[in-house]
């Protein structure tokens, strides 16, 4: 059940997770925030980050 299609160490995962988190936040603010508050994005990406770090 790996998310990333290549081998990665802990740093890679945290790095990718944070990169995605930031991108999602920015896009969210630009396009989605009118309908859903930003907290949804924060919670969602945090959840994803944890999942990513655990599963790789």
């Amino acid at each position, binding site marked *: 059940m790996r998310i990333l299609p290549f081998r990665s*160490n802990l*740093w*890679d995962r945290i*790095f990718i997770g944070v990169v995605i988190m930031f991108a999602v936040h920015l896009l969210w603010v630009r396009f989605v925030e009118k309908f859903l508050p930003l907290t949804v994005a924060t919670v969602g990406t945090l959840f994803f980050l944890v999942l990513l770090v655990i599963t790789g």
Partner: protein
Amino acid sequence: MQRKTLRLVLVYLVCILIAAFTLFPIYWMFVVSARTKLEVFSGPKLIQTSFYAFNYYRPFFRDIYGRYLVNSLIIASGNTLLVVSLAVLATYAFSRFRVPGSSNLFFWTITNRMAPPAVFIVPFFLIFTRLGLRDTRIGMILLYCIFNLPFAIWLLKGMIDSIPRELDEAAYIDGCSLFGVLWNVILPLAKPGIMTTAILTWIFAWNEYLFAAILTSVNARTITTGLAEFVTVIGTNWGEMAAVSVVCLIPAVVFIGIAQRHIIAGLTFGAVKD
């Protein structure tokens, strides 16, 4: 046979074209630096017969540009020394030993070289001021490591990787210490790479503008920032600006002239893969 001559003619033609394109702006700079203000504004004649030395005399002997020149020399040389010595040590470690997370570390240092320098101006201004490093040569020497050190490590990595491991293993068995190995084995063999690195580092430090413009004012001001100072209320002094540009260019050109061969030898970037 005929085809061959034709090709040679073509090659020369292309070379001359490129050389002309490269040299003309530099030539023009010399020309302007030899003109009086009135000459500069009286239409672009391509040939210059007289030489107005005052353009050179005034900035370097009456203004502070002489001091700027000294600052630039000290900062560039100091930075080169620091960067090359640190980079040799670090690259050796990266190259020979399994450092945990080394690829991540390597990647992170590279990103520092690649980020727009403008990104760092706000924090550096505030931090340097607090630490009293603003407008000091030592501050500039340290600061320039931010883009030179990653670049040096990157350049050296290929060089040191290509030195056979067996050589230093043998030296260890002979009872050499780590620094003994570095000094006696690695340094001589990596010399062309180190030369290249040193020269490029020096040139980058010599050429840097943005940080120097913001973080220095009197004591550590460099010659490149002096160029921007010519744009004044009383008219951009084109002649003197060109003169300072010419002087600014000379040491870098001398370096490149001496070390051109080494640069090509050292610019392999062989081991980007890590």
